[in-house]
């Protein structure tokens, strides 16, 4: 068998595929963050908490009303989005005129409160959630057995990421959104309701986090702390990709997933830190991030 640095090439392919799956979660979460930062100039530290709410919601509706994973796919992002609207209308909208630091503090505090409440209600050890029956079993890729469910995750994420990018960069609505963030008074003068658009942007951003939560529920431990474990990496992804860059966050998310996957093979202890080492390097060479523009 062919080997690269003592690792069989088949095993390497397997790890790359798994890295891609994890990269999809990074991409979907950092995409939401990028949209919110790009449009609202808010560094949404509560993103991990929204992701967690998506997953716990998925468990809750199954446990209480026997509502299947399929419905959660629709309901959880909706519920999380509505919660996002409440947060934006009640709290965030008061902070647009001040330093982004305050938005960061507020959302960070919010994340701690939400996690604390869920921890109090559900404990730290997590809630059981199985894989939907349709997706049980695995695909034989020749070099590895890929569980069907993970393949679905990759497909769904890529579709959602592409759709989001398309809406913002290629449609009329996206053009309004981008214009509304550049120069709100002018766009308002054309008769477009900018505050509503901003609220919806936030709802969509956190809705994406909720959707990632639904996708994660069957494979990861559904627990109040699942978001905080992931959020720091996702922030690093956003910084590397360039704050606010939509394409940047998608590409970086997938790329870092792959690099992390490789690190797990060659020096697993560093798999949590490799992302941050790359972040340092990128910031040294390109302070605005790989896809960011200097302002």
């Amino acid at each position, binding site marked *: 068998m062919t080997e690269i640095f003592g690792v*069989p090439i*088949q*095993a390497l392919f*397997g*790890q790359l595929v*798994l*890295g891609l*799956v*994890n990269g999809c979660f990074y991409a979907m979460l950092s995409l939401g963050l990028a949209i919110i930062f790009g449009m609202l100039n808010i560094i949404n530290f509560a993103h991990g908490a929204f992701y967690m709410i998506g997953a716990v919601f998925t468990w809750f509706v199954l446990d209480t009303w026997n509502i299947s994973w399929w419905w959660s796919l629709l309901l959880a992002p909706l519920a999380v989005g509505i919660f996002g609207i409440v947060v934006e209308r009640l709290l965030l909208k008061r902070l647009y005129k001040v330093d982004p*630091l305050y938005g*960061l*503090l507020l959302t*960070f505090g919010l994340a701690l409160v939400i996690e*604390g409440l869920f*921890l109090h209600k559900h*404990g*730290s*050890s*997590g*809630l*059981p*959630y*199985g*894989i939907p029956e349709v997706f049980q079993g*695995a695909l034989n890729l020749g070099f*590895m*057995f890929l*569980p069907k*469910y*993970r393949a679905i995750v990759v497909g769904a994420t890529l579709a959602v990421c592409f759709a989001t990018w398309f809406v913002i960069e290629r449609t009329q609505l996206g053009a309004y959104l981008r214009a509304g963030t550049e120069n709100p008074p002018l766009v308002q003068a054309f008769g477009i309701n900018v505050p509503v658009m901003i609220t919806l942007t936030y709802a969509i951003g956190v809705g994406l986090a909720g959707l990632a939560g639904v996708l994660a529920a069957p*494979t*990861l*431990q559904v*627990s109040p*702390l*699942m978001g905080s*474990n*992931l959020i720091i990496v996702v922030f690093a992804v956003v910084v590397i990709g360039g704050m606010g860059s939509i394409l940047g966050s998608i590409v970086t998310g997938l790329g870092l997933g792959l690099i992390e*996957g490789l690190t*797990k*093979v060659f020096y*697993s*202890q560093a*798999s*949590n830190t490799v992302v941050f080492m790359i972040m340092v390097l990128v910031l040294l060479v390109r302070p605005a991030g790989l896809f960011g523009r200097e302002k």
Partner: protein
Amino acid sequence: MKAKLMGAVAGLMLSVVATGGFAQAKSGKISGGVVKIGVLDDMSGLYSDIGGQGDVTAAQMAVDEFGGKVLGAPIQVVSADHQNKPDVGANKAREWFDGDVDIIVGTVNSGVALAVSKVANEKHRLFIDSGAGSTRLTNEDCSPYTIHYEYDTYATGTTTAKPIIAQGGKTWFFLTADYAFGKSLQSDTSKFVEAAGGKVLGSVLHPLNASDFSSFLLQAQSSGAQVIGLANAGGDTINSVKAASEFGITKKQKLAALLIFDTDVHSLGLSAAQGLYAATGFYWDHDDDSRKWSRAFGAKMGGKMPTMVQAGTYSSTLQYLKAIQAAGTDDPDAVMKKLKEMTLNDATVKNGKIRPDGRMVHEFYLYQVKTPSESKGPWDLYKLVTTVPPDQAFQPLSQSRCPLIKK
């Protein structure tokens, strides 16, 4: 900017943790006129279900059994969050011992426990740990003021490995959490595997809280080992077992969770966890005594059944109070001497003895996780496989690396 923020946040968290009061009264036998028990634990992090608030409840139950008084002096329970950070834990321990806290109990997380044990030794106060796993507490880092209660990585690792080796699982690969506890669990178990004629083919160290384990499991799979030993705990174990069942790894290889708590199994669900062995010093449904105590605990904890850590915190607090009564004083040296003479028996511990190295040895149990059809309720998780006598469950004194043991 972020660093400044984080600093402010950390400061806030520190100031939130509970602080002990100050007692002025003097009494001859009881220092400070009050016996104060400090539960230092992970109150909000990943191990908070294993210890956490349940440990505080368990300690309080022991105090209530004594009617809240020993030798005429009141008993108080105080608690604080160590946030799984050894420095936070050590600072809190120092603050407590410099005040009037007599003993620290609970304390999940081996890193924190080792730090607290050093402070206890320095301050000549007692530390009875029932939450940490690392055998270093009674070996390299043993102390005359530390008792390691309930379980350790040797006991759970070897008790789990024994039946698997007997069934022909000779080659092993470890998934190991990259800190004191995981390494201790791996080394204790591999020594045992090798001594039993097995072979360790390799291991992979994973970071604490690594959410995706499929990559590590694939490495374990390609090693071709018959058994995959999970030298991790809590959420890491849960995510490992979940991914192993998803990737169909359990069809060809056997999974050995070297430390798994009933809360983990409860969270995994029986369909993912069925068939796993679970070595434990306590399971709520063991006998009438344990059932009675556990139901009382559950009534205070919203129906949750206690883990062995929480049972250990109850038992260690109770036995500590008994030792004060027997010694007629709360002087740490006198109480420790008494504790090491006593035979420990209560609702959760049978025939416990505390050895000179600080290791508390007692009956240990090997359970197996029930299948969904065998289970009759949400906490009906285990069936008993075998009871292991104390001298077989724990590391023999002859192998001890504790400097207090003269050979």
